[in-house]
């Protein structure tokens, strides 16, 4: 029935084929697909850089790359993974799912949607081209601390311009999501009935609009310091290198929640589905997300305890940072309570979700440890920090993304993926990721600093183990690529509902979802049945 409805509406758009379909598309599903494929390519690229890093660190001494190139790799790995991998992947999910979840026909601003995607390939082409420039790619870390970053060669203005472009793309994406969620919900889809994924993205979008301009300001000040004789960050001209860190982390801390809040949303969709039980504490989940977003603005200087701060500052940022543990804890407790007395099954999305809850929480614990200022003086800039943020980003953000792909892939393609391959992918990833990142806690505590291409001998064994784990983890992701392509090409037909315990408007449309959904508003009775309030 819906298929015929969709066919009737197809005359709105000329049928474009080939490259033009993708270049000119204003369809939220096509744009979501573009975002997801783009981010997957960026994951492979950033992952390749990580493997160069791990290959060099496999044993002490320098065997493969020189230290300058090594620093370029750590810098580019972070920039590519954060701005090219995780952020666009979540925007892709938002594009695909938000209109279907709130009963809207498309995003509110479809042409801007097209533009905000197509900026990305050009921005990254520019950023990656810096690898071939005189002086090499940026090598001052993704944090771009002045004055070191001002020593970058020809790559410098290209890095800054690409960050400006990425920022424009993100802000446009965020505006689009806010406009869509606030204006295009089907009647009956009140705010407190929205799926948690929509809620967390709405909050994330506000964070993006608040902090991306701050980053743009910071990098513009770098640009004028380098080329136009200003001294914002140059003490010789009356400037202040620490100012850059304050501005950067005022962006940077909300940024880490930009990377993780949509992941919380994904978890809150998947766990109830496979526990066959409504999400526990829906309202408190919404309030916890909002509290985390608010707190993220008042904790930034916990990245800077060793910079030197008055005692009052150190205490304020220690206490405010510790507070974040409370709403984050509430989320974890709610997920566990959702599982409690459910009727659980363990398909691949659920496996990744369970791994997320455990491993993200471990990353949360090390985060709490880092909040304790006196101890932070030992942890700061050591491999302990590297372990911490990889635990929240890899089994956190990236596992959530992978889980989301498995969860919604049957809806997107109309085919079930291979559960056996999915389980292989899960176990290989979950084990190898711990082999990679867990030893980093140890070497960090024992005194190994981050961002070095070589190390003292007492760190050799753990580093070798990490490298072996990293290569297994990297290779396992090719299995994921194979599985996704196989699923697109064919497989058992998926039903509209796909999962026995699935609830939400996206499960009321056929699989694969037709190009146009909800051209007529869904029945408010359906909305009441599919959402919880």
């Amino acid at each position, binding site marked *: 029935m819906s298929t015929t409805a969709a066919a009737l509406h197809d005359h709105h758009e000329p049928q474009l084929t080939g490259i033009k379909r993708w270049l000119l598309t204003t369809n939220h599903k096509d744009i979501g697909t573009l975002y997801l494929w783009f981010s997957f390519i960026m994951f492979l690229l950033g992952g390749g850089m990580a493997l160069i890093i791990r290959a060099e660190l496999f044993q002490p001494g320098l065997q493969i790359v020189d230290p300058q190139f090594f620093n370029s790799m750590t810098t580019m790995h972070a920039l590519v993974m954060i701005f090219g991998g995780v952020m666009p992947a979540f925007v892709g999910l938002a594009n695909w799912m938000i209109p279907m979840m709130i009963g809207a026909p498309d995003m509110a601003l479809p042409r801007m949607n097209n533009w905000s995607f197509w900026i990305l390939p050009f921005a990254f082409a520019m950023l990656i081209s810096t690898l071939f420039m005189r002086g090499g790619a940026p090598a001052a870390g993704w944090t771009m601390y002045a004055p070191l970053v001002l020593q970058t060669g020809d790559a410098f203005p290209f890095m800054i311009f690409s960050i400006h472009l990425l920022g424009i793309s993100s802000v446009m994406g965020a505006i689009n999501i806010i406009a869509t969620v606030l204006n295009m919900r089907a009647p009956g889809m009140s705010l407190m009935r929205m799926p948690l994924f929509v809620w967390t993205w709405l909050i994330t979008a506000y964070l993006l609009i608040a902090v991306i301009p701050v980053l743009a300001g910071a990098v513009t000040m770098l640009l004028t310091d380098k080329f136009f004789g200003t001294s914002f960050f140059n003490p010789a001209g009356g400037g202040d290198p620490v100012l850059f860190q304050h501005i950067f982390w005022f962006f940077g801390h909300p940024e880490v929640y930009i990377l993780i809040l949509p992941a919380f949303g994904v978890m809150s969709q998947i766990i109830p589905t496979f526990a066959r039980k409504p999400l526990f504490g829906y309202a408190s989940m919404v309030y916890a997300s909002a509290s985390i977003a608010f707190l993220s603005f008042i904790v930034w200087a916990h990245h800077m305890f060793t910079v030197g701060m008055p005692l009052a500052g150190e205490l304020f940022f220690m206490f405010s940072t510790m507070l974040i543990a409370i709403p984050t804890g509430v989320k974890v407790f709610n997920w566990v309570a959702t599982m409690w*007395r459910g*009727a659980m099954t363990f398909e691949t999305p659920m496996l990744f979700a369970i791994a997320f809850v455990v491993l993200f929480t471990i990353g949360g614990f090390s985060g709490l440890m880092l909040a304790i200022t006196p101890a932070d003086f030992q942890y*700061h800039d050591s491999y302990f920090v590297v372990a911490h943020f990889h635990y929240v980003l890899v089994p956190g953000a990236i596992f959530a993304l992978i889980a989301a792909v498995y969860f919604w892939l049957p809806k997107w393609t109309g085919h079930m993926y291979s559960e056996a391959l999915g389980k292989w992918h899960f176990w290989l990833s979950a084990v190898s990721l711990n082999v990679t990142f867990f030893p980093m806690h140890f070497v960090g505590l024992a005194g190994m600093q981050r961002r070095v291409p070589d190390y003292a001998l007492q760190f050799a064994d753990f580093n070798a183990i990490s490298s072996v784990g990293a290569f297994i983890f990297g290779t396992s992701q090719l299995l994921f690529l194979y599985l996704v392509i196989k699923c697109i090409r064919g497989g058992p037909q998926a039903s509209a509902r796909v999962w026995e315990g699935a609830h939400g408007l996206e499960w009321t449309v056929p699989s694969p979802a037709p190009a146009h959904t909800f051209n007529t508003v869904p029945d408010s009775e359906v909305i009441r049945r599919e959402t919880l309030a």
Partner: protein
Amino acid sequence: MFIARAAWRLLVGSVILLAAVPALAEWAINMPRGVTPISHEIYDLHMTIFSICVAIGALVFGVMFFSIWKHRKSRGAKADNFHESQTVEIIWTVIPFLILIGMAFPATKTLIKMEDMSDIEMTVKITGYQWMWHYDYLEDGVSFYSRLDANSNKTRQLDSGLNPGDVPDYLLNVDKPLVLPVGVKIRLLTTAADVIHSWWVPQLGVKKDAIPGFINEFWTQIEQPGVYRGVCAELCGKDHGFMPVVVKAVNQDEYQAWLQSQRDVTPKTASL
């Protein structure tokens, strides 16, 4: 060769990981307890918070895995429908809050001690350069540079063909260590001449950024003589990994003798 060594490491690694805890000590898996009053306090704080986290983790994951085992469809579990309880939400907001307050007290006490700059007996100014350290004994007119030792430096070059295993204290040795007396409250000032560096010695429980245009201060009081090794912790460019810190702590007599020998070789110059 490459692969054989990797396989060997992996094998040794897994054997040691499975072996008794004392064997792990040689692997340096934890923060050192250190040799200053502050480093001891930091270590105790670290272990306390770590234990609290382990306890919370055991509880939460315990409940979760019990549920995963018990409430699975394959065991015939029927899903309940409860999904809201203000009481439990309040409980699991308040209890963590109380635990956090319990953590904040000792942390605040230690922090106040770290920032207490009273009763200073001597001062050394540390300046970070790309890529070496400069030490300046402000009261005694002694100053010198401290660089990565020649042996490590030769070995660490790309394709040097030399085995780091043959170099004693590879990458953690310098040509001229910072010599400090034990039992004295020493003020350390950090600054930098080019980019930001960070002076870190884990055994002393200190890490402070060295920032151009700023002078940061902190203090240390070393309890026992010994050689304590550290590194530059803030990315400072190409050779960031190759500017170690070595502190040689000696007793007062030895320190005075060393100071005298330095005065003989270094002409008294104004500090940088």
